[in-house]
């Protein structure tokens, strides 16, 4: 399944003065990234910075609170680490989208095999009304970047 033709081109010259290792982020040297083939542009403005508006957008999408400048810096380093993938020349190579690509999905027959476990399922929830689940109210609204306080993450 891994039999793919890869041509890995290492960017020349290598800027050896700028390797950085962070405590909590990815280990090891990060090689300077040269644009590879078919590489989607990541939203970064010079020196791998992720703009504030994009951070807010990501927070809303993933319901994650970055909370601090350090966390954002960690994110930027993670992106830079992943950017090394662009060093690969993938011209003419079909993307591997799934490890299961050579298989076919298993088809099961249309028979009811399980169920009748209403009580058990409803017990999973704190708040139940007449056999309905009651979620937390609305989509938790996030405070804006100016008044940054730790916000409760949705369950």
């Amino acid at each position, binding site marked *: 399944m891994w039999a793919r033709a890869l041509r890995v081109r290492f960017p020349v010259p290598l800027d050896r003065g700028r390797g950085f290792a962070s405590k909590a982020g990815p280990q090891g040297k990060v090689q300077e990234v040269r644009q590879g083939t078919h590489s989607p542009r990541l939203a970064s403005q010079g020196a791998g910075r992720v703009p504030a508006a994009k951070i807010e957008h990501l927070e809303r999408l993933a319901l994650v609170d970055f909370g601090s400048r350090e966390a954002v810096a960690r994110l930027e380093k993670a992106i830079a680490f992943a950017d090394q993938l662009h060093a690969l020349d993938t011209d003419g190579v079909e993307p591997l*989208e799934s490890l*299961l690509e050579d*298989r*076919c999905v298993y*088809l*099961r027959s249309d028979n009811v095999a399980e169920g009748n476990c209403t009580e058990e399922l409803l017990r999973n929830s704190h708040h139940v009304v007449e056999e309905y689940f009651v979620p937390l109210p609305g989509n938790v609204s996030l405070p804006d970047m100016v008044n940054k306080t730790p916000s409760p993450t949705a369950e």
Partner: protein
Amino acid sequence: MEGELSGVLNRRCVEAAVMTGLALNCHINKKSLFDRKHYFYSDLPAGYQITQQRLPIAANGHLTYSVYMGKKRSQMTTKTVRIKQIQLEQDSGKSLHDDLRSQTLIDLNRAGVGLLEVVLEPDLCCGEEAAIAVRELQMILQALGTSQANMAEGQLRVDANVSVHHPGEPLGVRTEVKNLNSLRFLAKAIDYEIQRQITELENGGEILNETRSFDYKLGCTVSMRDKEGKQDYRFMPEPNLPPLVLYDATSLPADADSQQVVNIDQLRDMLPELPSATRERLVQQYGILPEHSFTLLNEVGLLEFFQSVIKETRAEPKRVINWVLNTLLYYLKQQNLAVSESPVTPAALAELLDLLDSKAISSSAAKQVFEELWKGEGKTAAQIVTEQQLELMQDREALEQLCQAAIDGHPQVVMDVKNRNPKAINKLIGLVRRTSLSRADPTLIKEILERKLSL
């Protein structure tokens, strides 16, 4: 083992998807893929929905439907709407809003159940066309057994994407209209939205690419715009589902496990009669007009009613269709009743038509009997005829005498008739009908009068 990771798909869903794709003239993709569509909502516990965004099971089909054209809406013409694709996906749970206690209630019974999404191209031009096209789709799905397609029960859900543009220009910004749970509201909502957009643009405003909900009480669409802005679904290949592979007669593997193999050609052979074919067959079988067979299929239960009457009566299909469409359906529509709620049963109508066919009663008497049957008091047609003395006069001699009496008693009218006044003869016929207490066949009256007046 790698196999432990893979998810499993219900075979019946795949068959239903293929049959629907074939019925809608689509290309069936022998290999289709599954994706994850991410968003947060309380009725989606996993935080993502499995769908087929990149490569769906079927694509590039079309749906043909008929519309009435012209001022009198008497001409039928066929139109086509292209099918962009059909995809298999998971249903979410159902959310109910308890406004009283400001909370949302979630029912997860349908979460994860297989859905088919049919995506149409923007070829429809107005609410009425959309309703007709969706009705046709509904009938196809019902004929296939893919779905009972009842909109009120959420078995068929429709979202309408509406935009306006000047002829020749590209499509305008579209809005998505949701909460349409009947064909009537579908048409209403679309027409409202078209007008709203036109008015907005003519006033120099702009259309926002947003989701709107149809408020059926107010008859208008209302913005559902989320404060969070445009959704980013972060589509990614579904890691737990391998590609869905379908076969046909040529690609069928020799040692295939029949449970695991879906054969497109085999399913094509099993396709039942679709509505368009049914309509044609009815025209051939009963000698009725295409418009008639269109109505027979369009009204729920009407075809079955019609066929029941045909089975029990001696009357010709042409007469039956006339009474079913022009009388029964008319009465039903007047009182907004479904065919299943008709106080007149097929058996009752069949009996009435037999009486008419054997010339025991005149057609105007038959109308009276039908009116009485409609009251649903349990009387049969024969009983009503006897009670109201509606039997046609069998005594030819007596009728001749009544005609003579009318002639003798109305010399002025006779003069008008002889002067070729076209309305005069009807006056005479009317006079005889009254004296005969509507128990004579108007055609026979006319025949006798004309002979007596040597016309």
